[in-house]
């Protein structure tokens, strides 16, 4: 299998603050990768480096196009737009500057909304949807981007159980159809259940590999330090109580 994502010697610093250092990995097409690590470990920064959105040292090579699901908090939810309008944004780069989405794009966007279980909410204003529904709309928009690589930033944070199920099902399907999926998450248990591979970050790449190799007490201790608790042979990770996303409580 050819590598869909190659990162070699990646280093990212914001001013004097070193956020990522000496990160190298390569991922074959069709893998579903979980990016784990405590708060401030550089998970979001890694995604931004893959997107080409921050100044980096080292090499980052990935197949294009890239589909992207930003953190829900980054979106201006109060903007007057309906779910269909959000999904249609996924095809803007293909359309070019002056063309508006045609019937073909609209039909496709409706089909994608159906795929995330929101066929009946196409005309609902985005700010009238629940957090989980909004997240599913953003996922449908990423599907509209038809990316070879799909990047998701905390897609499971603070959403309802049904949305979480739908999200994971659709994301997994993407990977099985050949897309390379990278997802940051705080939810270790969920990541262990659905991801093929894991990248464990804490400024440096603490560990990487197949899920069953990574999900060990030793690795988790190295990544989370004192936050990792071992109880009767099972490892639990205490999430940072001062959670900077403000809506991710109760995971881990």
């Amino acid at each position: 299998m050819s590598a869909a994502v190659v990162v070699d010697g990646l280093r990212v610093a914001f001013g004097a603050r070193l956020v990522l250092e000496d990160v190298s990995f390569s991922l074959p097409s069709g893998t579903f990768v979980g990016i784990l690590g405590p708060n401030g470990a550089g998970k979001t920064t890694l995604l931004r480096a893959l997107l080409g959105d921050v100044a980096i040292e080292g090499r980052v090579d990935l197949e294009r196009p890239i589909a992207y699901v930003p953190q829900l908090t980054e979106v201006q939810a109060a903007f007057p737009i309906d779910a269909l309008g959000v999904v249609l944004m996924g095809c803007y780069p293909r359309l070019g500057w002056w063309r508006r989405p045609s019937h073909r794009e609209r039909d496709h966007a409706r089909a994608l909304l159906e795929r995330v279980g929101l066929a009946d909410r196409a005309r609902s204003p985005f700010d009238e949807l629940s957090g989980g529904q909004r997240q599913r709309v953003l996922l449908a928009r990423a599907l509209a981007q038809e990316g070879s690589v799909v990047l998701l930033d905390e897609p499971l944070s603070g959403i309802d159980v049904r949305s979480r199920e739908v999200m994971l099902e659709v994301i997994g399907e993407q990977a099985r159809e050949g897309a390379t999926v990278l997802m940051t998450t705080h939810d270790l248990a969920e990541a262990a259940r659905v991801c093929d591979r894991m990248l464990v970050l804490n400024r440096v790449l603490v560990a990487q590999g197949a899920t069953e190799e990574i999900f060990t007490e030793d690795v988790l201790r190295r990544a989370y330090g004192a936050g990792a608790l071992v109880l009767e042979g099972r490892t639990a990770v205490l999430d940072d109580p001062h959670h900077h996303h403000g809506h991710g409580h109760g995971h881990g």
Partner: protein
Amino acid sequence: MEWLIDPWTSGIMRRAFAEAILMGTVAGGLGCFVLLRGLAFLGESVAHTLIFGVVVAFLLGGPVALGAVGAAALTVALSSVLAADRRFSVDVSMGVLLPTFFGLGVTLIALTEGYQTRLEDTLFGAILEVTDLDLALAGAVALLVAVTLACAGKELVLATFDRPMARAMGYRLGLLDLLLFAVVTLAAVVALRAVGNVLLTAMLLGPALSARLLTRTFWPMVATAAGLGAFAGIAGLYWSWSTNVGGGAAIVLVVAALFACVAGGHAVTSGVRRRSPAPVAEAGLGH
């Protein structure tokens, strides 16, 4: 019906109507971006920077409108130079430049014999003194705004709704911001002539606020705001014609009255909607 036709018999009023309609449409429509991007500050400060250009034009004996356009172009160009440094956003650089220009303008006014009498025109507009050049400028700005929204409207919406996504898709946010600021500044130049420096922000934000309450998605909101802006222009001029109230003030008061009606109606209908399904549960929750 005579009162309806009467104002149109005067050449001065016909020009004023044309200016008010163009200004109301452009400021109303673009005001939606100003409102949703939280750029109210930009509209306010642009109004201040333009004073500098107006005074310089007066000193050189040139047309006032061209002075304002010159000042606007200079501001946008300088702010883009400043904003090239990633540590400053475009609105921060605007925030530095605009008070500077305002200070320059005020200083020039103090030093200029005979300008004080025209200061009032700049502050409150002089829609009855609109020249053919002003009208041509307003028309050109309206056309430019229409072309901009047709070519980059959906990209500007994306950059407002979801900046990380716009960046991830490879759009250059700095350039999109600059484009938006440039057309807003040009709209401010047009509105300066009609309603003046002090009342300009009301023209940008008032129709957009009303339209936000009346619509659910963005482009209908823009169309509604543009329509409300144009309507306020026409209605304000009728009022001004029949009562001798200043044109700019009358237009802005119509904008305010429209918003009061829309907001009042919205409060009543959403109150009814909220109360009807669960009157007990909703009572006393401070809605």
